[in-house]
């Protein structure tokens, strides 16, 4: 947490000079929660299942319903090795994804595809640029398959920017959300 505060402070100091301070301050206090991410990704998967290929375009809209707080849903094709939709990085759309690594050399989409291949989806942590922040942050994303006609490798994912959460802890959260009866409140 401290590292992020320091980094945000440093970025804010830099960006503040350039006049971008308000945007960063808003992003820092309004962070998406893991529960929101699971709900959005689930909704996106169901939406695509219903709308087929016609639903994809909406995910490229930076001011649409699939972008909220500091998070967003992106779509990629694990079989065709391609970014299908990304609201904030149009430069990546249509490009190969499997070779993309983070600053630690982690093949991000290889891991996302593996996690999203599970029936209930899965979590992967890596480093990525947080919207509105400079440099990279620790991001932990939830990936889930999207079952649409004429396509076999589509997945949707979204993430939280968090320095403490672990993929294992979040996997428990996903299980709980999928099957609340197994986890009594008291």
């Amino acid at each position: 947490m401290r590292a992020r505060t320091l980094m945000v402070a440093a970025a804010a100091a830099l960006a503040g000079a350039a006049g971008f301070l308000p945007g960063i301050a808003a992003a820092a206090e309004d962070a998406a929660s893991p529960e929101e991410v699971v709900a959005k990704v689930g909704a996106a998967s169901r939406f695509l299942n219903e709308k087929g290929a016609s639903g994809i375009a909406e995910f490229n809209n930076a001011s649409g319903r699939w972008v909220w707080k500091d998070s967003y849903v992106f779509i990629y094709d694990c079989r065709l090795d391609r970014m299908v939709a990304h609201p904030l990085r149009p430069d990546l759309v249509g490009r190969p994804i499997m070779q993309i690594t983070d600053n630690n050399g982690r093949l991000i989409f290889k891991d996302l595809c593996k996690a999203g291949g599970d029936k209930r989806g899965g979590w992967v942590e890596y480093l990525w640029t947080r919207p509105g922040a400079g440099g990279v942050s620790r991001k932990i994303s939830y990936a889930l398959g999207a079952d649409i006609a004429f396509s076999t490798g589509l997945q949707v994912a979204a993430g939280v920017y968090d320095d403490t959460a672990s993929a294992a802890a979040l996997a428990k959260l996903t299980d709980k959300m999928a099957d609340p009866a197994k986890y009594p409140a008291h």
Partner: protein
Amino acid sequence: MAEQKVGNPAVVGLAGFGLTTMVLQFHNVGWMGIGPVVWLGLIFGGFAQMVAGLQEMKTGNNFGYCAFTAYGCFWIALALLLIGNHYNLYVSSKSDIGWFLIAWTLFTAILWVGALRISGALALTFTLLLGGFVLLDLAHFGFPELTVVAGYELMLCAAMAWYIMAHLIFADVFGRDVLPVGKPWLRAPAAPVATLKVAGATA
């Protein structure tokens, strides 16, 4: 006046069937996008094959009449399904497409029996086609990885269709059968049945 030579519509039907099937498999195994599949599906696999099918009527070939017209319509329907899904018109889910394919599998099974009586090459083409449809059915109901297997399997099917097309065209241009299609897998009934017929006629 000498009668004008009439072409065999099957050469166009087989060309359209083979080429469009081939291109769809290039897509299914992940080599290319869907764009050319849609347009070739409408024009060559669809329109041209369907017209070839309709022309088969005059040749008195019921198998070709039904098969080419039907698979021509299959391609037009498939292209329209893709276009519909793109433009949010009667969107089909994965299982909708699965059922669409199951209907075509059943239809193909009927023609497959007929193909067994026509020639070895046609029997092989339809065996591969039927196998490809079954693999695609499974791919749509729980085994998505079979799409790629079906892709390679159906490439062989498309190549077989082209082989029969080449057999017809080369026989015409070379004046002899360069590429034999082989004896049918189901032979015409032999002596005993014929004897029965004769017996029936005399009784």
